């Protein structure tokens, strides 16, 4: 769970999602045992986390409050966030979220989500590229995001770019659970750069693509 001070990892994940829609209430889970929801707005003097009230309800259970935190964003706005306790981050059940203005009770946000549908994994790690012994193929291997849940349910996407920028990038989809691939249609004597990203597989899960892994490169 993010502390009250800006955490670089939370910051980068929030930025990854924030590009989808400013002024929206966004939520994500990293390991299915956590959930953080946040929104960003223009900073205005005197407006702080006490001005809003955040509450949530798992279907069939009572409404509970979630304590709001705030921090300045890298882009000069302010971000409000709250992090649910592990005991309440249940999947496969509707979770209703409500943000109101504390003074007036006016509705600010209302969303119903499923925790299993808002997974935002860390990037995969340990990406290695090597030339196969024969045929000029390139073999890529990597590891699932550290600490990621249910690794057999993670699918990946590989990005292949020719180093000189010519020919553009190519994306290769990897079946869930697999952490390697063989690329056979690459040009010879070319420097290629590879990266890989992860997401939980449908239909049981859903969410967002992770950030790209550290890239590796190789001369074919």
């Amino acid at each position, binding site marked *: 769970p993010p502390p009250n001070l800006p955490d670089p990892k939370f910051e980068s994940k929030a930025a990854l999602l924030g590009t989808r829609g400013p002024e929206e209430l966004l939520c994500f889970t990293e390991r299915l045992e956590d959930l953080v929801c946040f929104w960003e707005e223009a900073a205005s003097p005197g407006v702080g986390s006490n001005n809003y009230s955040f509450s949530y309800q798992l279907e069939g259970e009572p409404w509970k409050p979630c304590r709001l935190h705030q921090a300045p964003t890298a882009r000069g706005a302010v971000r409000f966030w709250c992090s649910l306790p592990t005991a309440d*981050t249940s*999947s*496969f059940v509707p979770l209703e979220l409500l943000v109101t203005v504390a003074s007036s009770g006016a509705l600010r946000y209302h969303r119903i989500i499923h925790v*299993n549908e808002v997974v935002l994994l860390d990037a995969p790690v340990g990406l290695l590229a090597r030339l196969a012994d024969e045929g000029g193929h390139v073999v890529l291997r990597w590891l699932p995001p550290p600490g990621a849940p249910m690794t*057999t349910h993670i699918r990946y996407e590989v990005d292949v770019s020719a180093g000189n920028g010519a020919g553009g990038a190519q994306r290769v989809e990897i079946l869930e659970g697999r952490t390697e691939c063989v690329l056979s249609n690459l040009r010879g004597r070319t420097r290629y750069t590879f990266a890989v990203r992860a997401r939980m597989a449908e*239909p049981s899960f859903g969410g967002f693509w992770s950030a790209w892994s550290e890239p590796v490169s190789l001369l074919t």
Partner: protein
Amino acid sequence: APPRLSLICDGRVLERYILEAKEAENVTMGCAEGCSLSENITVPDTKVNFYAWKRMEVGQQAIEVWQGLALLSEAVLRGQALLANSSQPSETLQLHMDKAVSGLRSLTSLLRALGAQKEAISPPDTASAAPLRTFTVDTLCKLFRIYSNFLRGKLKLYTGEACRRGDR
């Protein structure tokens, strides 16, 4: 492994039922009129708290899935009967309901072949097993959401783990 074991371990087989359930959920998502049931139906709790689930005995997981599936099957049969007796049953809703009845019967058979029933009745500490949590629903939309969440969640998780255990 006996050949029957592999059938539900072929992920695409389970996926078909999950997609069918999601489709039924989507079809009823917006419907208010014609979706309410004339009585409350008891359904299993679909919620999975991963922190707790990972620490749960296999026998307890099997109970949740096996008994949950039995309760869900009864609930869908009841829903089918209520829908058939309603004044103007929609053909689309009836088809989804019929497919759910058929699908749950198939899943029960597949899970029995996987050994879920055996695991569910013979955990070493049966006395300490928690009773199954249940809810009631009063609309088709909630019934189908339970159906979809149960298959995507507990059933899929349990099946994935049981198939991996069978592999070893």
